[in-house]
């Protein structure tokens, strides 16, 4: 009986996916073209300059936003990525993370603001976010690959799915926790709704939003590596291939490159967080 039910459920899901890919094919084809195109655009951006330019830019950002020591380390680290011969793969991965993050922000920031403003909506959306964050990330590859096929688009979609929850959550939190006294200041000064948002709520929410973006980025890095399985390219693919051929040295090189990239992006985005107000 239970078996029958499970089988029925599985069949239904299968049918639904097939139905979708049969009947809404043009839609998913379109989506794939757009996503791939977007990724190529970003990749052209980061892949085009010579390696040393990127290393210098990374070093300069690190110096400016974190500190001199970190700036030097960042430049050195990127140099190391280049030295291992994995530079194109490193840039592929960077482009994947950046394009996934841009899509994530475009979706999650407005959604987070909406959740922050709407009482009750958070109770509706919290369980969904919890679920998304609890399931193992590679789960999201399955429906994506069924609909979008093997390749970058699938990797992007799965990455966006795992990167969105922290951004939504912390944006909503930031918007909600405007100090009472400042809300009153706004009201008493005669602000309209938009001014309340831009002049009062947003500045106070910024540290929280930036923390959300930072967390989202870390999730994205994790996913982008896993997405090597579905042909995302980049370091994920390098590691996946290296595992299959037991090329341990190469997989270690790729892992190091990922760690370096992740650490640089992590510290730099943390450096973007405005310091907590002292008053």
């Amino acid at each position, binding site marked *: 009986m239970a078996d029958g039910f499970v089988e029925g459920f599985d069949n239904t899901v299968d049918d639904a996916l097939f139905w979708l890919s049969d009947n809404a094919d043009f839609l998913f084809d379109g989506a794939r073209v757009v996503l791939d195109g977007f990724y190529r655009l970003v990749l052209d951006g980061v892949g085009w300059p010579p390696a040393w330019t990127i290393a210098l830019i990374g070093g300069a950002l690190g110096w400016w936003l974190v500190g001199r020591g970190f700036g030097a380390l960042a430049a050195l680290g990127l140099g190391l990525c280049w030295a291992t011969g994995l530079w194109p793969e490193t840039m592929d991965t960077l482009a994947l993370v950046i394009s996934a993050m841009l899509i994530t922000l475009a979706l999650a920031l407005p959604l987070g603001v909406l959740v922050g403003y709407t009482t009750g909506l958070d109770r509706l959306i919290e369980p969904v976010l919890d679920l998304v964050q609890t399931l193992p990330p590679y789960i999201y590859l399955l429906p994506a690959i069924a609909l979008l096929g093997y390749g970058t688009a699938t990797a992007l979609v799965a990455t966006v799915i795992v990167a969105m929850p922290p951004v939504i959550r912390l944006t909503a939190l930031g918007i909600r926790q405007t100090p009472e006294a400042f809300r*009153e200041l706004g009201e008493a*000064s*005669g602000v309209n709704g938009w001014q309340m948002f831009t002049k009062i709520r947003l500045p106070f929410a910024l540290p929280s939003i930036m923390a959300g973006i930072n967390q989202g980025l870390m999730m994205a890095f994790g996913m982008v590596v896993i997405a090597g399985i579905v042909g995302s390219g980049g370091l994920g693919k390098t590691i996946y291939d290296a595992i299959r051929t037991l090329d341990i040295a190469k997989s270690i090189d790729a892992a190091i490159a990922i760690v370096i990239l992740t650490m640089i992006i992590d510290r730099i985005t943390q450096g973007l967080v405005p310091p907590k107000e002292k008053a």
Partner: protein
Amino acid sequence: MNESRAEVLVDCQSLWKIFGDKTEAAIRAVSERGATKADVLQQFNCVVGVSGASLQVRRGEIFCIMGLSGSGKSTLIRMLNRLIDPSLGKVLVKGEDLSRLDTARLREMRARHIGMVFQSVALLPNRTVLENAGFGLEVQGVPRAERNAAARASLAKVGLSEWLDRYPSELSGGMQQRVGLARALTSDPEIILMDEPFSALDPLIRRQLQDEFRQLTKELGKSAVFITHDLDEAIRIGDRIAIMKDGAIIQTGTAEEIILNPADQYVADFVAGISRVHLVKAHSVMIPVAEFRHQHPDIALDTLPAAAPDADVAALIGQITEAAQGAVAVVDQGQAVGVITMRNLLLSLREAPAAQGGDHG
């Protein structure tokens, strides 16, 4: 009460604010059977914020609301610009019923006519002093150059011209509150609402700000509603004082009226420790000319030193101790309106028990 003819800018008519669901029943319980704040909490699970408060603020007047913590002062002042909607009753500002204004008109009323200063100051931490002071005009869409000029001018009035480009965290508490006041002044409102603006400051700075605030308000011809839990502060700053207890205003009057004639034991206890020598004025102490003539037929009025009706007891003590006859004539516009003797002065300094309060007014 002092019946000045100045236009009434803020008129509150039996305002109520009950926090909770059964507000109507709670209001009835209080107004019909005199239920206390505790009764209302117990019976209706509602908190009485303000109960049946009426007050009028006239143009040019500084009106203090004094009461202990939790007596409803913040709730009352927030109904004057409708940050809080009354449960019952009306607020008229410049003759306009606030509850009838639509959002746009209410915004305009707040932006142009009613300034507000908070105990927490609430300076935006990511903006400079100048940008904070210009916030009100920025919200109204005034171009940057114009609002900066106005903000500079009001910062100059509070003595902060040297600090324009600093951030709030670089300023002391007293200076921050000055910025708060400047911010309220920049939009040039007629009415300024102040919710315990100086309560968090240390006593010396506080005194200084009290005096500056009063002087500035009078100079600019502003009207203010000033909230405090400190009677000394209310007396120092206010033209008139309302005393609140458990949401209700139990007495309104000048410091002199309240001290000479406390409405009940609660007020009497409150004012018990206040020194009267600067508060009680000649017109409240003097006896009629006829009575003096009757008591002292031998003393000619024009041989007495003259004092103005609003000369305080301290000044009168100075004059009377110099006078040979031990009396001072109170003269208003060349006309003797009363006489003060040593005995009158001593009586004025004796604290009247509340029961006797009634014979003064």
